[in-house]
């Protein structure tokens, strides 16, 4: 198979992925055979109406959820037989998450939130805080390091979350509606930053239902009723032009 050579260069290779959820006695077939390849350095938007399966797909890629069948290879590493422990290690080492609702721990300061994945990597406290401060600096929140999430604006919270996602230096950045809870201006701010990360070589996968946000990516994958109906490259709109 010619594809096997590609797989090694591929960041992500998914074939015939299926997922159903049990709802009472019946089951809901959410993903009906997804095939998807993403190469290193890509910035992909996954689009679709609600119920199309886009979030489920992202969760499976993020190892927050498990597929019923199909293969999933991440950077040459087959992701199967996931135990909780193994999934935890993979998530920690390979993946960075950005959520719509930020998901910061509310009683921890910005820098402690950023340092948390490093805690689970087993780094020493001093090293953790050093790295966390560096990444907070990268998102421009150096001065807010000791503040609690409730003292930050929405955009600032999302920046802290991005810093946290970057802290463990993941192979793949997964963003679930990263601008969903933000106003337009802040959204463009955050998108400009994410584009900058992509420019620096990070592979990014993003779920969104906003066309303008999707157009800021390099490729759009459209899902409908659990299958991919369209997969097209796009001319990237730079968010910085709005800022």
């Amino acid at each position: 198979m010619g594809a096997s050579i590609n797989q090694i260069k591929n960041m992500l290779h998914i074939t015939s992925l299926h997922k159903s959820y049990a709802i009472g006695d019946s089951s809901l077939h959410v993903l009906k055979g997804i095939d998807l390849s993403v190469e290193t350095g890509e910035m992909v938007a996954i689009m679709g109406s609600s119920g199309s399966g886009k979030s489920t797909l992202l969760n499976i890629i993020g190892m927050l959820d498990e597929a019923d069948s199909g293969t999933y290879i991440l950077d040459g590493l087959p992701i199967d037989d996931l135990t909780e422990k193994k999934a935890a290690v993979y998530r920690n080492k390979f993946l960075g998450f950005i959520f719509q609702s930020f998901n910061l721990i509310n009683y921890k300061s910005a820098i402690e939130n950023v340092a948390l994945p490093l805690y689970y990597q087993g780094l020493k406290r001093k090293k953790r805080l050093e790295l966390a401060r560096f990444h907070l600096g990268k998102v421009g929140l150096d001065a807010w390091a000791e503040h609690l999430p409730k003292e930050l604006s929405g955009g600032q919270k999302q920046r802290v979350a991005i810093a946290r996602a970057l802290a463990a230096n993941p192979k793949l950045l997964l963003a679930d509606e990263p601008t969903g809870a933000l106003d337009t201006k802040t959204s463009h701010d955050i998108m400009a930053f994410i584009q900058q990360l992509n420019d620096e070589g990070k592979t990014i996968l993003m779920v969104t239902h906003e066309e303008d946000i999707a157009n800021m990516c390099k490729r759009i994958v459209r899902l409908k009723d659990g299958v991919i109906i369209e997969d097209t490259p796009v001319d990237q709109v730079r968010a910085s032009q709005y800022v």
Partner: protein
Amino acid sequence: MFDLDLWREIFQSINKNRVRSLLSGFTIAFAILLFTVLFGVANGLQNTFNEAFADDATNLISIYTGRTTKAHKGLQAGRRIRLRNQDFDYIDNTFNSKIEHLTARVNRRVQASYKTESNTYPLRAVHPEHQFLEKTILIKGRYINQNDLKALTKVAVIGRLVAEDLFINTEPLGAYINLSGVPYKVVGVFKDDGGDSEERMIYTPVSTAQRIYGNTDYINQIKIGYDPKMSYEAAIAFGNQIKRKLKKRFDVAPNDQRAIRVRNRAEATRNVNAMTVGLSIIILVVGFGTLIAGVVGVSNIMIFIVKERTKEIGIRKALGASPKSIVSIILVEAVLITAIAGYMGLLLGIGILKVAAPVLEDYFIKDPGVSNSLVVGATMLLILAGAIAGYVPAKRASKIKPIIALRND
């Protein structure tokens, strides 16, 4: 393994969620407080009981005699039965294997005088083993011994209060006191937990008394300390056996209740013991009930805490927390809160017992308190309870799928 980072995480969690920590702590502290106070009060009640029955040996059978009330074997009613030395020897020989201590007692009242001081006191002429049956505690000198019995020495062991009355600023040991006209050498001074009347008593050898006061071999009373290994039932049967044999020996009708009287401490002790055991069981049930209520309370709080922290757990898992680390962070927090709060409840309970002790004494609760071993045991139990109360919800929390936990708002 001491993991500083884990502790830092836990202390931060406790410190930043103070209301939650305080609430769960309060429940366990209150349970332990009640537990301690109940146990202390129970101990106090038991102390009162023990003290009430601690004066004399508990394995005691006393034999008295009186007049017959029924005609028997051609003998008239109203005959006076008197114990003699030969009866003492008979009991000694017949029941030797079942007897730990044995003494006769001859009672007299004597006018005791030393120099210018003089007073009347009850005198008990006894065998050496009387000391163990009456739980006489020697302050100084010695008790009556076998030598005194054989040689009919005129020696006296006097009560603490007798010594106080007669020997003002004088050393009683070695002095001679006059007991109703006969000089006795004081060889010992004793005290007795039985109270003042027991300490206003004079002991002399039984043989000496029999010779001096009437030159008879009559005995007023025989006291037997039966083998303490005997069960209450066996001891009661033993007492009845003695009664039967003596009635036969003195030709007393079997149903004559007055001629030969045998008082068996085993009967009273059995009742008291049954009562104390009953009391202990009630206290234990109530105490552990309280503790269990506390544990259940903590479990509920832990379930609530896990629910409240579900989202946090989801975040932690998404960031790479292993199930083990989730369990340990919740479990150690639970154990820590239970241990600290429980210990505080314990201290508070002990404090309350200390403060309330004088008041409680009026209600027959003496020296309420808990032993060190109970304190250690309760603390251990607490830590265990905290661990159990925390483990189940912690384990459940560690199994929540991160995606479900993250959806929880």
